[in-house]
């Protein structure tokens, strides 16, 4: 709890200021404040607050059931199509921002993953992580999410292959911070 408070000082300041503003607006019948709360904030928030915990429970369950280490063994240089599929599934199970993917690519590179699979990992990581997909379906709908996933997949695979062709005869390494 303290950690959450510490990391979110500015956010809590905004939340407290807004709460006070709305409370004061209601007590003195200040329409601007009332309308910002009623017409905007309340409408956006009410379904989200019910929906978000459900999504996060799904994400948490995914996290405890997927075994990352088993997958990492099978995505080396001669892994072919199976390697591509595995690396995509591996990255789909991740959580977190893009810069969280780079340390994992270092581990993959050290374990002998191919250049192609490393970049496919990054691509899938930033675009089709399951936690993100659940959010996308929830807020933008199935149609959008399915279309985006279908178009993104071939493109990140093509870029992975392209990166490998570009870098094949040059020294490639992932540095550790």
């Amino acid at each position, binding site marked *: 709890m303290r950690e959450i408070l510490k990391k979110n000082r500015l956010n809590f300041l905004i939340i407290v200021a807004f709460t006070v503003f709305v409370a004061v607006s209601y007590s003195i019948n200040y329409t601007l404040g009332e309308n910002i709360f009623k017409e905007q904030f309340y409408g956006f928030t009410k379904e989200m607050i019910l929906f978000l915990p459900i999504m996060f429970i799904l994400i948490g369950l995914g996290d405890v059931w997927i075994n990352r280490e088993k997958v990492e063994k099978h995505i080396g240089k001669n892994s072919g199509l199976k390697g591509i599929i595995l690396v995509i599934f591996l990255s789909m199970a991740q959580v977190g921002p893009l810069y969280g993917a780079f340390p994992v690519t270092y581990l993959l590179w050290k374990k002998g993953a191919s250049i192609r699979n490393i970049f496919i990992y990054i691509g899938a990581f930033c675009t089709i992580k399951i936690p993100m997909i659940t959010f996308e379906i929830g*807020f933008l709908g199935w149609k959008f999410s399915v*279309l985006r996933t279908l178009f993104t997949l071939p493109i990140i695979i093509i870029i992975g292959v392209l990166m490998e062709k570009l870098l094949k005869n040059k020294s490639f390494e992932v540095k550790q911070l």
Partner: protein
Amino acid sequence: MEILTIIAVIAIIASLIADRHKTWKGIKKGLVMFLKILPAILSVLILVSILLYFLPNELIVEYLGEDAGLTAYVFAAIAGSIALIPGFIAYPLAGILVKTGVSYPVIAVFITTLMMVGILTLPVEIKYFGIRISLIRNILYFLGALIVGFLISLFYIL
């Protein structure tokens, strides 16, 4: 949203049958993640509420709506490439923008560039891969994001 709730309930039941201990661990993990992101989500919702209250809907529709033309896409692509917004916040925000009248194709370009291109995270990426590879990756992904955005827009316009 109902479908996701059903999926979640089924997943929880299946997981409980397979391993009760693991299930609680997962649920707890998820809820802790939720609490961690909640302050950020709330404050973004507050700021967006205030902004949208003062910004007339017609203005948003005119500049980012269906008939906004190429400028809207250029704006979305630039904003998406530069911005560093976690998906947990970007998607609720995108959902609100769609309800306000921003067209799906514009949102598609914004979301794809947001996810695939990271100008602000470039310094971190360079530390791992070096300048050359990082630049090539971001340029290729920028083009890729535009292609995906364009393909999605075909399905919404036609």
